[in-house]
């Protein structure tokens, strides 16, 4: 059985579900008014919004937009001011996942596109095509660790200390369990790979500073490391794809909608305000 074939079939289906979910959500949003008007069809509203977005992208405000997207959409300074620990948890989980996603994308592009199709074998592709390269090994471990730290803070606050302002609902627990499963399965798959290939590993593999010592300790156990790695990796990949498909229908969606809203609200707040621009002093 070709595990990559299974993965790609599932992953493509998951992407279709994700896009359908996004379109589905957009169709609900388009029932609202746009620019204070509701006498437009959904298509006209969408066209208006696209024009407004493109007008901002191709204007002098693109810098402000990017700054708002990164600063307000991803870093959330308001949360930092209000609650440092909550901010740290969110930043670790969100930032860590974004970081790991970017690393995975670089690896995919190097291994599946740049090297085999375009025959580009340079420093960039050689780094990201090699799981045991110093940078790849270290950065992947670091990303995973950051997410784990974030999840641990979240779980401690929510289930142990219970230092919460709202009651925990299923949607809150679901997102934590799913992320924990993705991270745990990724680590376990990596430990199995390192255990399997331990004798042939280059010295740089030690930069996988969490998985490597564990592999060193458990590799002598009489376990089918190869098969375990394949199954765990398959689970990790399929489950990650399933979670992506589930994003538009779950609390995960706040990562997309929230970032856009934070950006839009920042840009709007920087526009000359209705309240102030008409007020002038000293004409009485």
């Amino acid at each position: 059985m070709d595990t990559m074939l299974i993965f790609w079939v599932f992953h493509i289906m998951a992407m279709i579900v994700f896009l359908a979910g996004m379109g589905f959500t957009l169709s609900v949003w388009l029932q609202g008014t746009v620019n204070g008007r509701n006498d437009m069809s959904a298509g006209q509203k969408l066209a208006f919004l696209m024009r407004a977005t493109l007008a901002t992208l191709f204007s002098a405000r693109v810098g402000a937009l990017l700054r708002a997207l990164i600063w307000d959409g991803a870093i959330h300074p308001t949360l930092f001011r209000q609650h440092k620990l909550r901010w740290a948890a969110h930043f670790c989980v969100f930032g860590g996942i974004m970081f790991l996603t970017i690393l995975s994308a670089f690896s995919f592009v190097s291994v599946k596109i740049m090297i085999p199709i375009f025959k580009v074998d340079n420093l960039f592709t050689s780094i990201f095509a090699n799981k045991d390269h110093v940078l790849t090994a270290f950065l992947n471990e670091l990303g995973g660790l950051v997410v784990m730290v974030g999840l641990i803070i979240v779980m401690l606050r929510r289930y142990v200390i219970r230092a919460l302002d709202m009651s925990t609902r299923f949607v809150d627990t679901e997102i934590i369990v799913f992320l924990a499963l993705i991270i745990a399965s990724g680590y376990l798959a990596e430990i199995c790979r390192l255990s399997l290939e331990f004798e042939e590993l280059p010295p740089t593999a030690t930069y996988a500073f969490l998985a490597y010592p564990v592999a060193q300790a458990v590799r002598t156990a009489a376990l089918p490391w190869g098969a375990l790695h394949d199954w765990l990796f398959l689970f990790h990949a399929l489950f990650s794809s399933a979670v992506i498909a589930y994003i538009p229908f779950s609390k995960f969606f706040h990562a997309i909608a929230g970032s856009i809203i934070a950006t839009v609200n920042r840009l709007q707040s920087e526009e000359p305000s209705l309240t102030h621009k008409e007020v002038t002093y000293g004409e009485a």
Partner: protein
Amino acid sequence: MEKLDLTHYSFKQLMELDGCTRCGECVKWCPTYTEDGHEPLQPAEKIRRMKSFIASQYGLWARLFGPKFPPDKAWEEYSRGVYGCTLCGRCHVVCPIRIETRPLWIAMREHLVQLGHYPEVFDTLRDTVTTSHNISGDPNEDRLIWSGNLERIPEGVKGKEKAEIVFFVGCVPSFYPQVYAIPQSMVQVMEQAEVDFATLGGEEWCCGFPLIVAGMGKSVEGLASHNVEVVRKIGAKRLVTACPSCFHAWKVEYPRIMGEPLGFQVQHSTELLADLISKGRVRLGQFPHLVTYHDPCDLGRSSGIYEPPRRIIEAIPGVTFIEMAQNRGNALCCGGGGDLEMVDRDLVSALAARKIGMALDTGAEIIVTACPQCERTMSAAVRAQKKRVRVLDLADMVWTAMERGEESIHH
């Protein structure tokens, strides 16, 4: 039952519902939830409930297996949360993604009005305002009753055919004796500063703000067009009001309702007073008191006016000014907003008591504010708690300082 009409919300507001992270920062800062502790009052909970209503009609499950209309009980609980809010907007300030909560809560109220799940008392309010043209139901011709006991009634009070400035008094200062001092002080200050002003007398109709925040904005169109027409007739270049709610209605809501610029400026009285003081057009005497300032929600968070009131306070000789622990964007609501007084008076009293406590922590002798409704609410709490602190409007404080200035000259 028909499907939910989502045109009460904008595209962005529907997106904001999905953007809420349920982080709970808004919950911690919500004044009504902090006092009442009832879960539907939580800002994030209102969003969650509305999302679940939308999902029950438009969600994937609903599209596959048919929509369900939420039961009346769910709407009633939700309605209690949406109307048990002062619309203070502090949730917006602390929200990590800055959801514009206040307009969202008003949109939810409009939706609830359409669905018939709103407090009945608002029907009475709508009838009163649209027939009597004021919130108290008194004859509207009595709008200048507050001027009755002035030693000398300034020329502009009885109305003029033409004036530079229209002073829009507002319903609360016109009909609630506790705050008559606000228009009394304002007209005397303006007269002393030789400002060419006029009031509208019985031609002043309620600005409609209480109906807008009740979710009955559609009933305000007639009020808005009447008010705009009479101000235009006077040829005023500026409209000044001491009420932050009227100010917000004129400044933000009226151009939207009318679909065109008003053709004159709209100013809050604190902006005018700050200007008159900075230009030396009023002479201020000593006011040797320790003073703290309460930021009215509709003036501060909703309209962005934080500095003119502080400039006025700091310009008065002898005043020692001290900020409350929570001020400006983080200021605690006094409980007087959002029409909450019509729905839950006990909750308003509890909020006001908390606010007074925070003010007393500063050691101030006087709590000064710039809103008739805030003054009413906080004064009632001071009386109820028998605290030794005075609540004053800035206009009143400025006029008192001016009178003391005059007295010292005569001495």
